[in-house]
């Protein structure tokens, strides 16, 4: 029998960006919040030895221990799903702050087009533009409705940036000016302008200058040390939940954080959650935490897994397209890129910051005419300077030997002489791409793993090559002596790193028949359960997701307070 604890107002499952934001907002209003985090406590001082590429980038020190839990994957329903035994395509965070600790800090807003994608695509190109199996739908919210929440997140995190000339309307400028510009960034910017494109500084959570946010949290400026993604920040300059929102929640005296607490079920009765059941991972003890409101804020996979294991919401059935939990899993098309080698220029590419870069949206969303193209949407094209660490960055021109004398000589020659221009392609959902529980493989507690059924489609193949060609054109204008670019996307391969931007599965919408949560992230099927994160994305845009996750989290916090006052569905 599980030990039953006293009831709390709100219990939060997973304390990363979404959980941290909601904890800070609710405790400000006096609610008693318990945060359950399966991993350990983290703090800035942990990163004293952080400039260690092997430990953090190749041995995944900050990531989930796959020996305890992983996902299974198959390209389609005819294949047996097998466990992702080692890391590759994406990296699942762990511990306080979650993936918000090891991110790079790219903090974009999605385009107005994204939130009304089906309506706007149909309006401009007719309904035949959308393939029958492509399950894009409007999100039940507009950019204008979401704008104040984007603004709030950007101010909390202290985003450094300048206005996107092709983006949605802003109510205010970014709270801090853009990051510094390296010579290579200037080359990209100049080339793009020569080509009549619209480059702008990538909105960065790395802080261009010291900053105090509206909650009174002060942080120092980024030092461009070149160890950002996959690493924690030893300066606290990179905005993460541990150095921004969690301290605010803690200071309120209303937040109780419990680490090493692995939530396994949401308990519910008559369409209402009564609390959660979790295991103390240090003792193995089962504990019940009753609560008036349950907020699910773990990473995409566990949001869906927890709902399915708990029997909350209607599971998605790919054969009929009915049901919602697990529906519209999407990813990111990251391979549309090009590498330029410069024989006579050397760059400080060892230096950098996670979100240091220049980006353009001329080929993102519906900012360009798709009438004669065999895909919809697009991707942001950027040059980023994140720090080329030596184990993982040994690019050589295609055709060069990959080991031996020639490889050594060529890789040393180009170590500081190549620049990558790449696109972050959007990812559209398809009827047969989804998440469900694996019938065979279990985690360390005997619970089923989540199963991914996903592959690239014609949409993705056409988009990737289009974006790669555009990237190569820019590198040519930048004066690269030799350019290699993607020629063919190939199948989705879980073994090579692409992006930790997994989305969907508990999507937002305005109709309970086709979506799992309303536009306050409240479950249609359980008024006192809010499921927050990129799991709410009905598709994935050509941008990093965290800005939108942050906006959704503020929106959800407001919804929870509304529910607290009035009950029922808050929309």
């Amino acid at each position, binding site marked *: 029998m599980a030990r039953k604890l006293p009831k709390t107002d709100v219990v939060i499952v997973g304390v990363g960006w979404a959980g941290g934001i909601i904890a800070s907002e609710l405790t400000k209003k006096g609610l008693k919040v318990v945060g359950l985090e399966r991993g350990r406590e983290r703090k*800035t*001082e942990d990163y*004293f030895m952080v*400039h*260690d590429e*092997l430990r953090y980038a190749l041995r*995944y020190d900050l990531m989930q*221990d*796959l*020996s305890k*839990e992983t996902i299974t994957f198959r*390209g389609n329903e005819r294949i*047996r799903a*097998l*466990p*992702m*035994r*080692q890391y*590759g395509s994406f990296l699942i965070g762990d511990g306080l702050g979650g993936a918000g600790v090891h991110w790079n800090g790219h903090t974009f807003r999605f385009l107005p087009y994204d939130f009304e994608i089906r309506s706007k695509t149909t309006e401009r190109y007719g309904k035949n533009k959308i393939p029958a199996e492509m399950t894009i739908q409007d999100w039940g919210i507009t950019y204008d409705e979401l704008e104040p929440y984007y603004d709030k997140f950007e101010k909390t995190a202290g985003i450094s940036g300048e206005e996107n000339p092709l983006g949605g309307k802003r109510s205010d400028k970014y709270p801090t000016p853009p990051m*510094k510009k*390296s*010579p290579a960034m200037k080359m990209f910017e100049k080339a793009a302008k020569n080509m009549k494109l619209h480059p702008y500084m990538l909105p960065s959570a790395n802080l261009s200058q*010291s900053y105090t946010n509206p909650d*009174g*949290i*002060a*942080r*120092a*400026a*980024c*030092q*461009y*040390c070149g160890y950002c993604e996959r690493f924690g920040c*030893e*300066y*606290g300059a990179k905005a993460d939940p541990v*150095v*921004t929102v969690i301290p605010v929640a803690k*200071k309120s005296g209303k937040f109780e954080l419990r680490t090493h607490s692995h939530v396994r079920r949401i308990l519910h009765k008559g369409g209402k959650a009564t609390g959660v059941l979790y295991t103390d991972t240090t003792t193995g003890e089962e504990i019940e935490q009753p609560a008036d409101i349950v907020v699910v804020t773990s990473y995409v996979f566990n949001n869906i897994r927890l709902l399915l294991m708990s029997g909350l919401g209607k599971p998605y059935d790919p054969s009929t397209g009915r049901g919602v939990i697990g529906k519209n899993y999407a990813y990111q098309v990251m391979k549309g890129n090009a590498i330029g080698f410069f024989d006579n220029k*050397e*760059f*400080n590419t*060892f*230096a950098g910051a996670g979100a*240091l870069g220049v980006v353009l949206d001329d080929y993102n969303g519906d900012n360009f005419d798709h009438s004669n193209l065999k895909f919809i949407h697009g991707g942001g094209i950027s040059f980023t300077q994140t720090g080329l660490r*030596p*184990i993982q960055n040994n690019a050589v021109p295609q055709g060069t030997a*990959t*080991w*031996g004398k020639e*490889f*050594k*000589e060529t*890789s*040393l020659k180009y*170590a500081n002489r190549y620049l990558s221009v790449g696109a972050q392609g959007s990812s559209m959902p398809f009827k047969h791409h989804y998440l469900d529980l694996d019938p065979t*493989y279990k985690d360390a507690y005997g619970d089923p793993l989540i199963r991914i059924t996903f592959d690239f489609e014609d949409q993705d193949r056409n988009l990737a090559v289009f974006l790669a060609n555009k990237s190569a054109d820019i590198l040519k204008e930048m004066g690269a002596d030799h350019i290699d670019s993607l020629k063919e996307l190939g199948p*989705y391969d*879980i*073994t090579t790193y692409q992006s930790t931007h997994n989305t969907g599965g508990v999507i937002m919408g305005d109709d309970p028949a086709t979506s799992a949560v309303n536009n306050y992230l409240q479950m249609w099927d359980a008024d006192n359960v809010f499921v927050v994160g990129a799991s709410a994305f009905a598709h994935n845009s050509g941008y990093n997701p965290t800005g939108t996750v942050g906006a959704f989290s503020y929106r959800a916090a407001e919804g929870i307070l509304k529910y607290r006052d009035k009950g029922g569905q808050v929309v």
Partner: protein
Amino acid sequence: MAEEKNKEIPQDESRRKFIRNTGYTVGGLAVGGILGSLIPWRKDHSNGSNPPSSHEQNFNQALMYFTPEQFNIVEAATERIFPADDHGPGAKALGVAFYIDHQLAGDWGFNAREYMQAPFYRGEKVQGYQGRLKRRDIFNIALQEIDNHSMQVYKKSFTELKGEQKDKILKDFEEDKVNITTISASGFFQMLRSATLEGVYSDPLYGGNRNMDGWKMRNYPGSQMAYADVIEKDFTKIKPQSLRNHMNH
């Protein structure tokens, strides 16, 4: 133009200067994290902070896992993957074989943080490694097979082969031209190649990249506190530092 920085500034001094120049101020809620992480580094160490002189023994260079025979094969093979040349030392002088030995003795060798639960099925290539063997088992089998293949082709042990002959054996592994039922020859070769680059370029604390020579060959500065003053500049040569430097503060 290239310039060498930090050459003569004692490290403790450079750190104080760094704190001054970057304008850290006390006050506000979250700065505690930053100061908390900086202050312990500033303790004075009046003794024991000199790097070991070159004639001192390197106690790290002994074997945790390999037999001497295995070690010799690994040393010979990795030297072909990353050979000594005019640019500088190869895998052998950089300590790569010791690096791999030490890695196999720990988490990596045991696949300790990877999902190793049954059932095991042969999967599609895009589903990744699905074997039941751990890296240390794979090395045991593969090193034996390298020698077997070398005996078969040249009637000699791998370590006795000439350079191009060693390359031929390794290439047969890379291209799956060796028939091994228990492991993937090309899978092993890719693992050996990756491990070689790790040994060449990881922090010297792991036993490879000896004397930071791997980094020096490509002008990689290792672990530096900050590049805020070089990020806007053209290529700048900076004297490398390892994580060990941080311990001296």
